[in-house]
């Protein structure tokens, strides 16, 4: 299949992933990702942030994009080919060259038992991006993009590097195959504040200079705002609001996004929270399922929210999954 420019790079359409989880003697069905849609265009590489509270399905979505998890429903196409249906061979020879991951914990990314450069060499050799002495050159090149050199890294064990360095190596490894898409699942949440910025700046550089699109997953709205071009806010498997990051976070429409934004503690004593939270238990008066997933907590809840599932509506240059904007 030939990839054309106007074809989207990544096309996620009504994607659902269901987990059955059993606990004690009961089984619960959990839609980790529920009817999520998003598209990354091919022409102009962008950083797409996926944000949302813990357990909202960000990682699951990312794993599906990486082909590590099979979608239960919906389509997920990369350059027009369905990721779930790729053969093991196709994955190795084509898909993994195109799409590479950056994981959350740089130390978990590499086996502590192995030298960190072995992954670089494995990647370079297995995808035959270079031969002989060129291998070293290609690796060094990739490392330089992230501000390291092969000399610094060679022969070292992961724990001999700082978290930021290790995370850079992880990114460099991903870059060796010259991928078109990086899927970065909370790539900075384990890093020190000062290192965080250097990685985020690196993503921007990669987008601008190397033309790499990034699916940036985070629960930190501030970094999402700082880094991303577009953002999708996830709530229990749904993408409830998506659009340009300035708009979505600047003036959130979905009540959930609003709640999220207001809850972010601002590093400024002048912007401290004013309101007192109510912690008294509130009885749950209706089943949580069947309506909008946010209905139980929503301050603007309407009757229909409890029975009907909202569709995604276009509003103010973004798409919102809320009846308020129907």
């Amino acid at each position, binding site marked *: 299949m030939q990839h054309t420019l106007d074809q989207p790079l990544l096309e996620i359409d009504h994607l659902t992933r269901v987990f059955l989880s059993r606990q004690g003697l009961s089984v619960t069905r959990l839609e980790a990702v529920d009817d999520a849609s998003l598209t990354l265009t091919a022409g102009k590489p962008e950083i797409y942030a996926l944000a949302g509270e813990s357990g909202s399905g960000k990682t699951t979505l990312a794993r599906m994009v990486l082909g590590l998890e099979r979608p239960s429903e919906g389509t997920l196409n990369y350059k027009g080919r369905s990721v779930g249906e790729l053969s093991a061979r196709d994955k190795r020879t084509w898909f993994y060259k195109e799409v590479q991951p950056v994981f959350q914990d740089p130390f*978990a990314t590499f086996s502590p038992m192995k030298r960190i450069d072995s992954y670089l060499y494995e990647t370079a050799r297995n995808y035959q991006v270079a031969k002989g002495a060129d291998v070293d050159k290609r690796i060094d090149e990739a490392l330089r993009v992230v501000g390291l050199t092969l000399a610094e890294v060679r022969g070292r*064990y992961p724990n001999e590097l700082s978290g930021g360095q290790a995370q850079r190596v992880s990114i460099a*490894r991903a870059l060796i195959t010259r991928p078109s898409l990086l899927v970065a699942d909370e790539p900075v949440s384990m890093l020190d504040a000062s290192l965080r910025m250097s990685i985020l700046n690196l993503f921007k550089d990669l987008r601008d200079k190397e033309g790499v699109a990034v699916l940036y997953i985070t629960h930190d709205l501030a970094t999402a705002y700082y880094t991303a071009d577009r953002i999708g806010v996830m709530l229990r498997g749904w993408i409830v609001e998506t659009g340009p990051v300035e708009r979505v976070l600047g003036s959130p429409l979905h009540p959930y996004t609003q709640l999220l934004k207001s809850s972010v503690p601002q590093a400024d004593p002048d912007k401290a929270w004013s309101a007192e939270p109510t912690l008294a238990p509130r009885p749950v008066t209706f089943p949580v399922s069947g309506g909008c997933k946010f209905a139980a907590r929503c301050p603007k809840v309407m009757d229909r929210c409890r029975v009907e599932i909202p569709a995604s509506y276009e509003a103010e240059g973004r798409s919102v999954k809320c009846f308020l904007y129907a």
Partner: protein
Amino acid sequence: MLTTIRDLFRYNSAFRYGSLILVVVFILAGLSFFSPYAPEARRVVPRAAPPSLEHWFGTTSQGQDVFWMLTFAVRNTLIVAGLAVIIGRGIGVMIGMISGYLGGRWDRFLSGLVDSFIVIPRLPLLILIAAMLRGHMTLVALGVMIGLLDWAIPSKRYRSQVLSLREREFTNTAVFSGMRSVKVVVREHLPFLIPFLLADVVSGFLFAIGLEVTLSVLGLGDMNAQSLGTMIYWGNYYQSLLANRVWVLAAPIAAAVLIVVGFYLASVGLTAYLDPRTRLARLQAKG
């Protein structure tokens, strides 16, 4: 490697004692090659003599020198146990890793197989097979058999290890580095299993030596070969205890205990050393 051993020796008393015992054991086994008597020779020394300068561990009522018998016995028992351990752990690691890594249908099939093996009582099965093979039962066959029976429970342990390793992020890194499954399992996962493997090797040794002794005293081993078990068997057969020739039994019993204690202690030390946590701490300290 040498520094590891030196460090262990210096800082870990369990390892120190264990390896000293093992050295003695291996020297004993090695001495068998210099034995002045053939292993099966009888009537070569005075009968039923208590330990003396000439016959350190005494002699049997068959006119055999207990010390030299013991050298053969230790060697042969080590061979049986070694074989059993290699085969048992080999199968265990392989099945455990395959089943853990591949998951899905393969995992279900292999787990079912493993579970079926676990529920079959092993000792009776071994006795049954030994009874069947008797006459053709050699030490090698015994070792192989024990090995073939002692893999199921370890393999479960490896499986669960690999199951959790598979979920670790670096597995995905390896996959995205273009490594094939076999390579991932061998290069990425196997190193993590080494501490378990070691602990397991020791319990394998315990099991194999215990079984060798048990089968022999039930009269089901290779009664013509010298092993710790057959020494005990023949010691009992000629009533060493009743006839106050305790030395005939004391030697193999002490040797059996020493071997297993030696392996056990050495492994305790080694496991402590290989424990990923302390190991990482050390790497960090040096790096």
